[in-house]
């Protein structure tokens, strides 16, 4: 057996002055830690999930297992949110141009388990519809954004964006 040993000691900066209690390492407020101009018309990324394979079988949803392709992004939530910590910047919008791709998206952590569900899941729309992952109220830290489907063989082009602009009323009248 070949062993490659890598010894990493992570001193997570979670000291609590004046307290006898240790704290968990995910307690501070989170936001999407990406910088630079961004809007729905300038997506964070365009990616075709047909270019990857099925990576994850056991998802955090009670709907169980997935045999579709999985695209996985590492994302850090923390200080430095786009445009400040206001509500519209707290969403990832995942859309597709494929009318047959029924997406499921989740924000996962290693500690997700059957008894400890994924922080956020999105499965609102049928094939062709977009999904929204809201990170509002999530603790700072590293997460994994997974885009997949619960239907085997499904994949397609996806766009991930962080909306700068919230839903806007342009006019309202009663006649």
């Amino acid at each position, binding site marked *: 057996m070949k062993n490659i040993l890598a010894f990493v000691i992570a001193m997570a900066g979670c000291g609590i002055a*004046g307290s006898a209690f240790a704290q968990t390492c995910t307690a501070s407020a989170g936001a999407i830690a990406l910088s630079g101009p961004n809007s729905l018309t*300038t997506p964070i990324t365009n990616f075709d999930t047909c270019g*990857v394979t099925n990576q994850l079988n056991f998802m955090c949803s009670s709907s169980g297992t997935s045999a579709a392709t999985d695209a996985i992004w590492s994302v850090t939530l923390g200080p430095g949110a786009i445009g400040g910590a206001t509500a519209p910047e707290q969403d990832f919008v995942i859309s597709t141009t494929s009318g047959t791709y029924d997406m499921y998206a989740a924000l*996962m952590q290693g500690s997700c*388990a059957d008894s*400890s569900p994924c922080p956020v899941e999105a499965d609102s729309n049928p094939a062709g519809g977009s999904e929204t992952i809201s990170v509002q109220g999530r603790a700072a830290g590293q997460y994994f954004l997974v885009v997949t*489907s*619960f239907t085997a063989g499904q994949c397609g082009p996806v766009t991930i964006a962080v909306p700068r602009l919230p839903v806007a009323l342009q006019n309202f009248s009663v*006649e």
Partner: protein
Amino acid sequence: MRNINCVLFLASISLASGVYGAESMLRTPPSGTFEFTGVELGQTNPYAKIHADVIGMNRTPDSIQIDRVLAREPEGVTVKFKPGVVVKAGGKFDISVDATLGFQTGRFARYFDVFANGKSEPVDGFVIRGFADWLMLPSVSEIDFGIFEPTSKAVKIIPVETRPGVAIKLVGIDKSSAYIDAQVSEDGRALKLTSRSDAPWSSFNEEILVMTDNQLQPKVAFHVRGQSRGFVVPSSDPLDFGLLREGQSAELTDVLTDVTGKPLKIGEVVAKSRALVVTTVTECAVPSPSCKNLKVSYPPMNLRGVTGGTLEVRLPDYDRTLFIRFGAIGIGKETQIRDLAEDMKAQEAQTKSISSVLQTSVNEPSVGKLPAQMKTPDGKGPLLKWQVANEYDIYGYEIYRSVAEAGPYSRVNEKILERLEGDPEAGSIYQWRDASAESGNTYWYYINIVYNKGRKQQFTSPQKIVAK
């Protein structure tokens, strides 16, 4: 003053050829064998009984004999169809589904698998979707109870939000919590949460169910998370191993401290999880009678996806169990993990490059996308018109009416007006007529947004009209 640091030891990351344990890999079905209709249920309420008449049409050139149709979440679900039915090419078969919804509000999805005779894997599957519209909801979707010590009492009062104009009150507790005592306020409009002195020592993420007096929504769910900290405290909870590649092992150490300063005795440690992890208890780096290291070792990863669970640490001196969540996401040896921040930088660079080319070659404004538009409804009564842009994650709209600006208001559209299909950024133009308005009366109207997850938000200020 004392500082106790969270110390995570990530050690012994090894690539090994060994395979650990065995886990059946369930599979989701390929799509496209059948075309299913009758799967969109529209609007209902949390805890409602739902019924769907689903029709599957065989899109293949071959006949298929149907053996089983199974719900992936079978609890409380009844599926009826004609077992052994042979569906010819282009032919159809009927499936009847009855189920009771849970606490969730907003869009929901229920997955079903269809098996052909003699096949262990499904030949296809369908998803029943709908929208659970609420009458009552906790004022916050997830209640952060914070950290409490079982020896002291922590209290939180959580008010509820109700749909304007609807009579509904909380009346009693249906499902309680081992961590929190719940009590309905006298007016039935709030829930008082009090920490329990006998709460288990662990972090928690609980669902407390409370009964209402309205049969359209008989229960309301309150999601409470927090941490009950006893005399023995782990340095980390949860223990998050992050991603582990196939064949990779890892070890994390949680430092357990008896904060009373007493010598710490650790009894049996039981790991309840999909992955078979190994735990060992050792002395701390700086030896102290009140400190122990709990090492948690993942064997070479052989699972894909979520693998975690809970460690149960027996504490004989306290006759207690300390619960610590842990987990790792198993991925393949070659699985590519993209960095979203890096992808964004690359996308920006590409966008700049394209826009500079466009600036030099094309000097015309781009053509914007047009909003989707609803046609004007026939009939009499006040006509409400509104235009919306950036409709991402919007399910629809509610219309509220009152005879006075200050209210009380109640919803006048029986069902939520669903968002128009179209480009969400370009938005939509909506029209809705209040046919129930009486001629000559003065009314005030406002619009509410309804999001896919069920959250609602007032969208316009009230507008006045005298009905013609």
